[in-house]
């Protein structure tokens, strides 16, 4: 699985930029076969939101790599 895009959600939101899940959604929309998106988050709340949202919307959480307060969530679309 090749990671083709990384979305960094570690900065606090201000709503002057895209919403966090909006950025993830946009990155996933461009995925091709065998490709994945990595999402960088800080804290458990954002990790929960990204993984729960992905599962609910039919994406696959390939893995979650945690280091301290941060995590790298790898998402892909796998054939059902």
């Amino acid at each position, binding site marked *: 699985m090749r990671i083709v895009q990384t979305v960094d959600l570690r900065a*606090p*939101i*201000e*709503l*002057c*930029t*895209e*919403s*966090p*899940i*909006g950025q993830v959604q946009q990155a996933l929309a461009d995925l091709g076969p065998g490709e994945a998106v990595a999402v960088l988050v800080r*804290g*458990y*709340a954002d990790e*929960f*939101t990204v993984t*729960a*949202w992905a599962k*609910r919307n039919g994406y696959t959480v390939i893995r979650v790599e945690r280091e301290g307060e941060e995590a790298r969530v790898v998402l892909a679309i796998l054939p059902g």
Partner: protein
Amino acid sequence: MATYADPLALVDTEWVAQHLQDPKVRIVEVDYDPDSAYHLGHIPGAVLFDWRKDLNDPVRRDILSREAFEALNSRAGISNDTTVVLYGDFRNWFAAFAFWIYKLYGHRDVRLLNGGRKKWIEEKRPLSEEVPTYPPATYRAQEPDARLRAHLPYVLNVLGKRGIVLVDVRSPAEFAGEITAPPEYPNEAAQRGGHIPGAVNIPWSKALNDDDTFKDPEALRRIYEEAGITPDKEVITYCRIGERSSVTWFVLRHLLGYPNVRNYDGSWSEWGNTIGVPIER
């Protein structure tokens, strides 16, 4: 240690955890985007208020009417003596907006969850996907308290007057006119960028700690008083659509006890689209 002026306006996560089964308490999640918040899991027993659908008039640009507010509360099983606890996504912005509406319509006991949805989840407290239903209640709202709200003509009329200050709580880039609204929020766009003449820029987020809880009273007082926002003045807060400014309105009115604070919910999406009003950059 100093306490907040209205200590009952704020509850912490532990208080909520202890009141999950309390029939006198109704917990309400107020979301801008329920699909990436409430529907993924919420505080057990919490009902959802969708900011766009539930707290705004469906046709004209305005908050929901008094009758719609009564119906919303009735549906949620909220009566006039219910303790309403609000929290939500986007760092509690829309929960603060709902708090302001509750006060506008005269609800006695409404509180904000300090730290909001993020803090509850961060502490790995229980979440539920079950959407609860409650028996309908009788709810009677009061006439809106006009002292809590500013409309555009009012703001125009007080511009430059001694003893009245405007707090623009948007980011410095929005204040300077470099940003009006990002493309994904087309309904919030403005024809012109900048700020209302004389406004002081104190971004809403200055009032929060990293975990989204509010700073202590001394720290909050310093932030506003050093910028000339003192309790002897009438204060008008604004942002782009009135939700971030609700956070600052809450801080000034309920945490610091300023007696005269209005939220200008028309905010920049109204001012920046209005022909002929003065703008500063």
